[in-house]
């Protein structure tokens, strides 16, 4: 069969597929009243694949191959389009995949916990007993600012005067905290070094501030402020660091895979952790902006709620999704 005869014979089918694709890809302004029939598109796609294979095998001219190439490539994109982020998929991540991923990667999680908690405790205790050491963590004006934030003078705890209302702070916490945790994760690609650095740095920073404020006698305000949202925030930072460590480790020790396969595999598992971490940080930001800062709540209530939150977080990671199908 000559190329022109081939084209004339199957032209109609290709055109039909092209029209369907134009509609599906919003490439046409023409409105068609006919309903789109998925099974027809799939059938036409398989036909076009056959035609392409034939045309290649028979060395038909380039313009014909190009047209079929383009046609099958477009149809392939449309037919295999994935929509995995529906409500059901999100629920599955929360109810099952996220806590399971945390348990499956417990080695990284514990390692990240140590990397974060050790500098926090050490710097915290050092600064508590030797307050001028705070100046090696932050500069003098920042230290003064923190002191002002947690003195009981303002209308809300945890912010400098005139910093804006709860909503403004919510926006700020989201941007700041989720940014930090994404950085903690992504920099793990540098053989895990970035994650190690950010975990230790953030641990030391938090410890330094905590030790300093406690020593200055602002402990009551500070601890009652951070107790609740830290259940979500610190856990989330540690988990994103753990995901980063996993990424770095997959590169350093790929095992029986190639380095690239190993990285792709690890990233696929890590992304579930990052989804979960993002959700936790949104919760943390909401709690921090609207609950932790409330000055009228008695501390006993805050500590009570904090205890509940910490227990819920640990219980969630310990048991959620163990038996779910």
């Amino acid at each position: 069969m000559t190329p022109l005869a081939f084209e004339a014979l199957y032209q109609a089918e290709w055109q039909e597929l092209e029209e369907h694709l134009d509609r599906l890809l919003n490439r046409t302004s023409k409105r068609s009243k006919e309903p789109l029939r998925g099974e027809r598109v799939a059938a036409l796609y398989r036909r076009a694949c056959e035609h392409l294979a034939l045309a290649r095998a028979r060395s038909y001219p380039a313009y014909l191959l190009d047209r079929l190439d383009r046609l099958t490539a477009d149809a392939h994109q449309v037919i295999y389009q994935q929509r995995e982020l529906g409500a059901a998929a999100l629920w599955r991540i929360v109810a099952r995949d996220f806590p399971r991923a945390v348990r499956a990667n417990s080695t990284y999680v514990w390692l990240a916990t140590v990397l974060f908690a050790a500098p926090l405790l050490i710097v915290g205790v050092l600064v508590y007993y030797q307050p001028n050491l705070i100046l090696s963590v932050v500069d003098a004006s920042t230290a003064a600012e923190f002191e002002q934030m947690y003195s009981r003078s303002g209308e809300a705890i945890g912010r400098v005067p005139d910093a804006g209302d709860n909503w403004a702070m919510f926006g700020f916490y989201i941007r700041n905290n989720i940014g930090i945790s994404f950085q903690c994760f992504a920099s793990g690609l540098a053989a895990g070094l970035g994650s190690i650095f950010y975990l230790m740095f953030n641990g030391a920073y938090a410890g330094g501030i905590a030790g300093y404020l406690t020593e200055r006698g602002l402990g009551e305000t500070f601890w009652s402020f951070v107790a609740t949202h830290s259940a979500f925030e610190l856990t989330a930072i540690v988990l994103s660091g753990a995901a980063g460590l996993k990424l770095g480790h997959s590169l350093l020790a790929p095992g029986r895979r190639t380095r690239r396969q190993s990285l792709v595999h690890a990233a696929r598992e890590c992304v579930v952790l990052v989804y979960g971490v993002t959700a936790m940080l949104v919760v943390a930001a909401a709690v921090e902006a609207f609950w932790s800062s409330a000055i009228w709540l008695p501390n006993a209530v805050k500590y009570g709620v904090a205890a509940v939150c910490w227990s819920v977080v640990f219980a969630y990671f310990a048991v959620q999704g163990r038996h779910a199908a």
Partner: protein
Amino acid sequence: MAREVLDTVVAAETPEGIVLELRPAGLSARFYAFLLDWLIRLMIAYAAGIAAAFMGGLGVGFWLLFYFLLEWFYPVVFELSRSGATPGKSIVGIKVIMDNGLPITPAASFTRNLLRVADFLPLLFGAGIVSMLLRQDSKRLGDLAAATIVVHQPQRPPKVRLDNVAPVTPVVPLGPNDQAAIVALAARAPTLTGERLDELAALAAAVSGDGGRAGPNVTRRVLGVAQWAMGKRA
């Protein structure tokens, strides 16, 4: 299908047994797309800032939230749309797909855009640029981890129009690549000046038995071979 080395085409096989040819977009195309997206984001952030200025504290919160989403999720949202490309990429004519030719998945888009941070290290996308320059498929680190690839969107090939050329049977046997080259010349013919077309046709004159000669008549006969290759017979 073995390919000559100078081309950067990446082959991806589909379940239907056909091979999709992906043409990776190089550093310059992606740089322009990035620049355009950056400008677009800047304008959106600015417009949102003006709107937020009228809303007080709620406005500041809204703006910070919006800016956060713009910073991290602007590419994700657009890559997951049907076009698979941010506006900047769309303008340049490139898009993001999985490296097996499938449309990009949400998880992959999320991964490659978060890992932009790693590509930025040590400064000004140093790691990403080095990776793109070293690899034949121009992947940055985020693409490597997410198994995605940025490709040129396929363009519609020009239609071959040779209505008034009589078909000529080639005097030497022509393989598929030779035929394709001559048909491609015919496809380009309307965009070339007469002299340039004659010059190019003279290179292929051997196929119509006119080796060593040049001129409009030789060109006509070479185009006639193209006509033959497409199935026209005298």
